[in-house]
């Protein structure tokens, strides 16, 4: 091989020579010499615009990576891809056993099983996106230290994996719906915007936990508890409106805004004709009971009890009406806020993910 003119360090062998100031042909420092020749910092975060462009360029990578991950996820188990469907179904079965049969929480909902299954499947999507998102950066450190690509592709891919699992689960859901006499209507089309918004929300949250999880690995130990608490406050297994009767108004407002229940509510409303009827019936029923004055002539304990029940009806009616009015706004708001803030938050640490 040819040896062109000697270059680089002149003091090759002088291992004990005292370091001199580099001779830089009039350049004050190596950094300025580099930038003077149009070189760029190699570990720098790209500007937001080009970052988004790079990410868009990797859209095929995101989808192929997600598909490959979905495929390889269950290769070691004997039932293979069947687990995509079995896991959420078994989850739903457990909740049915506890909340449907043991506690009898079906309340005003007539078709409890589809109600529960939709809730579990959709909430599971969010839950899994967050859990796997927390490991998206942490668990791919070797990939991050080996290849250059916008790191946000990882949380994106992991959420797409969960979306693909949801699609598999929804084919089972379809069968369950038919079995319970819920047939396709035009309302079913509403599931498309609901899914888009939910996906945006999940990606956003997953980006946030991916950044936190990259630097604080303890997050994945803590997440299961947070997520389970959230599950119980999201009205997946029982109707939120029953709870609203016992809560002060400000707490009901908080429950209205809870993204965990917002998307599940919308999915139920779009897929279940019977649930839409249940809601209408509940609104009329509690509205009537609220407008009926408290019985005359009661005293003491009986009066207090009657008043509490009456207030409960009014609160339930109020909760139904207010959720009806706000649910779409919250769905859109959460999706946009989570996606934009999550993306920005993740992007801000882009150049530091390699360090671990």
């Amino acid at each position, binding site marked *: 091989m040819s040896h062109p003119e000697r270059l680089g*360090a002149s003091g090759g062998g002088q291992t004990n020579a005292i370091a001199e100031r580099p001779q830089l042909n009039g350049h004050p420092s*190596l950094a300025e010499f580099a930038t003077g020749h149009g070189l760029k910092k190699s570990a720098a975060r790209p500007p937001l615009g080009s970052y988004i462009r790079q990410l868009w360029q990797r859209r095929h990578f995101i989808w192929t990576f997600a598909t490959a991950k979905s495929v390889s996820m269950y290769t070691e188990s004997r039932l293979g891809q069947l687990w995509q469907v079995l896991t959420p179904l078994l989850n739903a079965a457990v909740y049915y056993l506890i909340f449907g049969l043991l506690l009898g929480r079906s309340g005003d909902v007539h078709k409890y099983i589809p109600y529960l299954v939709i809730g579990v499947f959709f909430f599971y999507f969010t839950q899994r996106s967050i859990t796997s998102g927390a490991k998206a950066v942490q668990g791919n450190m070797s990939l991050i230290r080996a290849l250059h690509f916008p790191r946000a592709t990882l949380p994106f891919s992991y959420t797409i994996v969960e979306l693909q699992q949801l699609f598999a689960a929804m084919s089972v859901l379809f069968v369950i719906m038919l079995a319970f006499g819920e047939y396709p209507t035009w309302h079913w089309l509403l599931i498309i915007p609901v899914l888009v918004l939910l996906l945006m929300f999940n990606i956003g949250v997953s980006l946030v936990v991916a950044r936190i999880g990259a630097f604080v690995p303890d997050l994945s130990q803590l997440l299961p508890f947070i997520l389970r608490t959230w599950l119980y406050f999201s009205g997946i297994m029982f109707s939120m409106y029953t709870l609203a009767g016992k809560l002060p108004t400000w707490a009901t407002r908080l429950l209205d805004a809870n993204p965990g229940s917002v998307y599940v509510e919308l999915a139920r409303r779009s897929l279940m004709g019977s649930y839409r009827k249940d809601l209408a019936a509940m609104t009329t029923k509690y509205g009537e009971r609220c407008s009926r004055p408290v019985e005359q002539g009661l005293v003491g304990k009986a009066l207090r009890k009657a008043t509490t029940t009456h207030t409960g009806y009014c609160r339930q009616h109020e909760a139904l009406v207010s959720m009806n009015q706000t649910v779409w706004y919250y769905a859109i708001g959460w999706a946009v806020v989570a996606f934009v803030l999550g993306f920005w938050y993740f992007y801000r640490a882009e150049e530091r993910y390699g360090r671990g």
Partner: protein
Amino acid sequence: MADALKEKDKVSGAPEQSTPPVVVNSDREPIVVVDDLHIVYRVYGGSEGKGNAVTAFRRVLRRENRPSMKEVHAIRGMSFVAYQGDAIGVIGNNGSGKSTLLQAIAGLLPPDRGGVYTTGQPSLLGVNAALMNDLTGERNIVLGCLAMGMSPDEVKEKYDEIVKFAGLKEGFIQLPMRAYSSGMGSRLRFAIAASKSHDVLLIDEALATGDAKFRRKSAAKIDELREEAGAVFLVAHQLDSIREMCNRVLWIDEGKMMMDGDPDTVVDAYIEATSK
């Protein structure tokens, strides 16, 4: 790459005088400039002592760092300039910071102090590069190319070329990569990386496991890349291939530059130093 690196506290106060000075050659176009680079990274795990809940709790109360988190000061103040058309060999003992240096040039490990400046996007080709072991060779080719930013059409176009260059035995392309021997794995990885033209290609022992025929093929590919006015960095322990493929060699030790010059001089000095 985390093999046998020293802890940070051992480093402070280390003598700096052994570093040779940097001279800039203004006739040639620089492609990589490394300016007083320091790399510190964190490694978790490998804790010593009692690992029970009580000691962990005491540690949290005292606001101490986890004993399982170690800071590794892998590169300690390195400066040099690489020019277009350079093929630079990097030699040194295990744990001297060779792989870390390449990762830093690739922009994968952020610098603690100093900086790395490059034209275009350097690509790193490592021993354990980003391929998914559970997936088939086919899938890995597609994923690797997409991750490098190719479009699906380009991937289709390059696919046959990659398979041919990798030269795997019949049928292996449909097997998951964990069934591959280390040599086959590195051939496929090199084939994928070489399918795209790079401004700066960093090769980290990726050719070590290949057989003679493959090494010839890859040497030709490296020459081709150099002619495209890029630069190639090569980490290898076979000093013969370094002499053969490179026009310049960096010898690094304990994260510092020992020597920078033409292959024969530096390799001879290295052999002399290590055979003592």
